[in-house]
């Protein structure tokens, strides 16, 4: 049995254990970050701190290319050790205690309607986002190392 928040992202549903979630909040203005990885949809102001907004679809490789985030979206503030980030989602479905799906896959839960919901692992998710960010930083370093001034309109 696991205490989780079940949320919808587009048509899909995911669950995340409550111990990783600090807060559910409504996103204000989203500032895009040029050269950031697709996994980061932008940065938002969370009570005076700059918080990266993580795009789960992009992290899981479900979609390539950044998708513009908008103010008013809902996000989960997740915290893994020293890394805090906002996870964008479509809506919160329920907070519940769910059991694991038959078959022994610990990353698959069954919700109250009998539907199977994959369990998100924030440490792994943020590690992937971090890798993507490191790769993007490498790309940007290459861009910056090519001297460029002036140019075509």
């Amino acid at each position: 049995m696991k205490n989780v928040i079940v949320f919808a992202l587009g048509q899909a549903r995911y669950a995340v254990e409550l111990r990783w979630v600090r807060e559910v909040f409504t996103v204000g203005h989203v500032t895009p970050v040029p050269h950031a990885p697709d996994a980061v949809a932008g940065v938002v102001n969370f009570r005076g701190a700059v918080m990266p907004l993580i795009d789960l679809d992009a992290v899981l490789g479900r979609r390539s290319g950044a998708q513009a985030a908008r103010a008013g979206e809902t996000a989960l503030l997740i915290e893994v050790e020293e890394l805090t980030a906002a996870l964008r989602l479509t809506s919160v479905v329920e907070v519940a205690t769910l059991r694991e799906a038959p078959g022994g896959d610990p990353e698959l839960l069954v919700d109250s309607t009998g539907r199977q919901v994959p369990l998100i692992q924030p440490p792994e998710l943020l590690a992937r986002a971090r890798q993507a960010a490191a790769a993007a930083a490498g790309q940007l370093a290459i861009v910056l190392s090519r001297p460029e001034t002036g140019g075509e309109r």
Partner: protein
Amino acid sequence: MSRDKRDPDDGRVSGVVDESFNTSEYRALRLLFRDESREALERVAHLLLRAGPDRIDPDALTELLRATHSLKGTAGTVGLRDFADAAHRLEGVLERLRAGALAWTAAVRDSIVEVVDGLRALADAAEDEIEAAELAKNLGRALAAVSAGGQARAPLPDPVDPDSSIPDMDPDGAGGVPSPRHPTDSGVHRSGRRDEPAQLRVDPARIDRLMDSVGELIFDRTRIERRATELRGSLEQLALLRDAMFASAEASADVALRSLVRELSDRVGKLERLAGELLEDTGALRRTGNALQDGLTDIRMQSSRSLFQRLAPQVRALARAAGVPVRLITQGGETEFDKSVADQIVEPLIHLLRNAVAHGIEPPEVRRALGKPPEGQITLSARHEGRSVVIELADDGAGVDPRVVRQRLVASGRWTDSRAKMASDDEILRALFDARVSSREEVDELAGRGIGLDAVRDTVVRLGGEIAVSSTLGIGTSFTMRLPQTTSISNALLFKVAGHVFAIPNVHVVDTARVEVSSPAIPSLLRVRDGAVPLVLLHRLLGAPLPADARSVPAVVIDYASRRLAVTCDKIVGPREIVVKDLGPLLSPLPLYAGGTISGSGKVQLILDPAALVRLAYPETAAPGRTAGRVLVADDSRAVREAMALLLERAGYQVDLADSGLAAWRLLGRAHYDALVTDLEMPEMGGFELIQRVRGDALLSALPVVIISSRATPAARARAASLGVVEVLAKPVEPDRLLAALEPS
């Protein structure tokens, strides 16, 4: 070896060095000089104050001479001619004192103290030419007085910062309180004050400058961390390569190859260890930087009392103007918070006070009719809650009627009827902070609240705080601000690209200009006031198009590490004080950004790192091997070291710096150098001892050595010649002569 054209001890400073550096380089060097000279002058003042009224210890006089002479040389090097000339004249006076041609009296001592104060003020004012000229004139008078034996007391030159001068100059000349920076280096204390802790009064502007430097330090640290992480990444790749190579080489029969690969493997292992250590060191740097920031913030803490004291007269004036008697009650005056937070919050508080007086407190006759005391009461309180400061401003006036606000919101079309009906009274009151509501006068008049609550909220949000309002009709209104106790504020220039606001630290912004973009090809250079600078299309870097219909766009001219460039933007927003926020571990690796900040309306704005932009405008510096050679410069004056580094780097040399003979000796053992440029008088190990060691070392004995010194006496020259020194140059060093001396013969 050529003979020196000038008498080495006639150190009158020629104009030669003035052309050596550009304006911003001079500025940087002079800042170094200012700090350095402050220390030296403090030592001089200390020596003077310890000297009795009728005699001075000959050792102290020698020390005074030495310090003055060395200041003269350094001032000349950084192009401060007035300072160097004054130091030269002071040196003349000290020489006369030493020779007995001038008698040491209390008047002479006091005049010299004045001269030293004048020198200090002059060093402080180095950036302001007009002020410096004025100070130099005063200094000239003080010097004339001291030459005349201190008879005619010169008018005191205005020190820029009176608080920084030596405290408690002892009028009877029996001794002085030691400078507060060295509280233990002298046993001389004034009786009766022995147990009082030394207090240091400092101009807040100085602390702010330090705080700015700490801000820069934190940017720099982020950059170093990023590079160290990059380095470790590359090494991980390299290690994989090494392992693959190792495996195939071990299988090979080629013995030479196997040993090469083993060697390579060792070296990579060492690099990996070093990179790991470097990362640990950056962790230490982070801790130290944070401690420094905390310490400085702590110094800047001030009590709410001083804030309240600034507000009290405002309330009196407002009450007089409105014709309403008001009593201001303050609570929690001992609550401490950051001066910069206090400074930012004054205007919003005045605004709220004005509203309370003008719209909140009823006229006395109304209050009487309501059974309230005729005198209105405003309570201003401050308290700590965790790491926040809570400031509450409450009045006992008429309060805000939510029904009226609700009606106005609907009548003005801002809110729909149903939204207004659904909203709680609290939500309605919160709407007062909305720009579109609170800036409408009719709402204000009816609701009993003034204009501009949106601006108040913006300031609070920008500082990273929150503001709330509560009101009870007929009883009063209260605003509660929750502010961070401390904040790191720095100055930045804000500009827009493709609808988004970006910031650049103001210290790196030198100018703004316009770029013609109507032709299809945009030039790679932009002409600015003093020359042309590379132009970087920030639009392209940020993935945005140039505005289609614009004939020209604004550009920001940036100076970073003495390199200038211009970047395009859509609109200059203007300079702002910003609160710098970390981007967090996920985004900090991106080399383009130095951090983020929160705008008044709560949006995140990105701070661009000028170091990254410079890389776009300038090709990487020439790889080692293409340089004219590697030179080690040893000098205990940082200003001189930096000046020499600039000169030599510009001539194509790779330059390393050492602040003592010993440090130079260590460096000589670690890397190959083509030449050594050294000062003579240095701590730990002097120049001659260093040269002797070099000559005695089998590997280094043939190293070309050039001496730069403010003590280029004939004796020193003779000794230098015996040690095979290429050239002895008197400070300030003439660049051409230094470069000529370094040319391989």
